[in-house]
């Protein structure tokens, strides 16, 4: 589903990603962990082309991200083609990034009606279903400012799901939440994983990684240090850097 091949990315002379390769199969949940500055969020943002990569290739569903390759040459995608690719990849941000001038329901319906070719009635119908699914069926007309952080993040998940993505990216979805609100967001993500969604999750929630993750990748300073079964790595990390990191967060 997702194939990341030898991806390098630098900001000026600072190399953030130093040859990352990953593979996520359909229906799998990959958890990216690591200290801040390790490049895990950047990696995630490269997958839906919010950031350009300097070398390597990223494929989602066998489609090269950001470029078209023909006759041994890469051609930049037109903005409309890049947008088209992004519609298949949902993203959930650390700071929710809900649209503050729209109600919860409008947040969930705006993309299907303006990007997709879905009728208003149909979008409202699916929007209500999605908000019900994340447990916010009673907050349809609430503006983000009148919702708690956990509720906002659940609306954000519903908003991403409204585009019927085949892949969901989560960029530290619970890091900006009060501790008692983390659970409700993780519950929604667990339900989503159980329903067979392919997910890549950057998180510090090791409990979630162990319980839901099919694959855990530990990154540090732009490289993959260790990867494999979450339960095994969390119990017996092989690398020194993984050990010292886990000792701090567990």
């Amino acid at each position: 589903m997702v194939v990341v091949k030898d991806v390098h990315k630098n900001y000026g002379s600072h190399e953030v990603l130093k040859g990352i390769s990953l593979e996520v199969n359909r229906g799998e949940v990959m958890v990216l962990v690591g200290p801040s500055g390790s490049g895990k969020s950047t990696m995630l943002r490269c997958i839906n082309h919010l950031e350009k990569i300097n070398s390597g290739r990223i494929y989602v569903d066998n489609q090269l991200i950001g470029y078209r390759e023909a006759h041994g040459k890469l051609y930049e995608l037109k903005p409309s083609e890049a947008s088209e690719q992004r519609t298949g990849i949902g993203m959930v941000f650390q700071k929710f990034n809900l649209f503050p001038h729209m109600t919860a329901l409008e947040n969930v319906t705006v993309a299907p009606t303006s990007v997709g070719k879905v009728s208003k009635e149909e979008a409202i119908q699916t929007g209500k279903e999605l908000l019900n699914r994340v447990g916010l069926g009673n907050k349809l007309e609430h503006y983000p400012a009148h919702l708690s952080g956990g509720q906002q993040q659940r609306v954000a998940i519903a908003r991403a799901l409204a585009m019927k993505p085949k892949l969901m990216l989560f960029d530290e979805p619970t890091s900006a939440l009060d501790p008692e609100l983390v659970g409700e967001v993780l519950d929604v993500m667990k339900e989503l994983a159980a329903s067979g969604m392919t997910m890549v999750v950057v998180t510090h929630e090791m409990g979630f990684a162990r319980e839901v993750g099919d694959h855990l990748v530990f990154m540090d300073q732009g490289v993959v240090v260790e990867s494999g079964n979450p339960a095994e790595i969390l119990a017996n990390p092989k690398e020194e850097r993984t050990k010292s990191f886990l000792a701090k967060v567990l």
Partner: protein
Amino acid sequence: MELMVPSTKESIKAVPLRHPFRWAAAVFLFVLAIAFIYDAAHRKAYDWPTYRKYFFDSRILAGAVVTIELTILSMVIGVVLGVALAVMRRSPNPIFRAISVVYIWFFRGTPVYVQLVFWGLSTTIYSSIFLGIPDIHFGKIFLGYHFPLSQNTPIFFLAMLGLGLNEAAYMAEIVRAGLLAVDRGQEEAAMSLGFGWWQTMRKIVIPQALRIIIPPTGNESISMLKTTSLVTALPLVTDLYGHARDIESVTYDPVPILLIACTYYILMTSVMMVGQYFMEKRLSKGHQELKVVAVG
């Protein structure tokens, strides 16, 4: 020794801090103001009988209407074009960015009074606009078209255009600040949902920026009401100041007529300031509401 703590149950009734100098300054300024008003009321040069005679003169009233029309129409041009320029400035297209930068550079860099003089001369400078390839004839077929410009283009129209195009440059900078104030995460969220650049601007960024730019736009409107007096440069003489000068040239007594014009301007700006006050209060109320919710 044990500290003696008196009963703390009753509410505090402390002697408030005294501000003798504030009182002294207030009395001084009040006396000064009374003296000025008394003097002005009796000063011959102000010629209050003439002031009263012409205060409701039909020309003054008609001029005030033209001033209001000019203010509204040129602000509409300024806001619409200003939003367009600010958005172009953010565009990924370098040509749009260049147009915006050059436009703002030119219209902010030259005095509005001089621009208005040029607008007055514009129909003399350009008697017609020719679109096509100059001096090329294929047989009898002439490649291009002459758009004649009327010498009788209404001066009001040129004044409105001149003020509006100048205002657009300033509004563009205000809108640009508004666009920059919208969190970048908004754009990223929209892009991740598959929005194109223009859709992101129109549906997500511009609506949020507009709320931010309402107070400075009110300020610009008040400023515009006064700037309309410069249309005398074209010359357009049907506005408030123009008509005031008309009357002056007959009465040979400019002072009371100018006082009338000032009174009208200050009345109109006062109404606008009251409107702005209520609008800002409404906006800040929404803001406080947000804070309370965030805490609770």
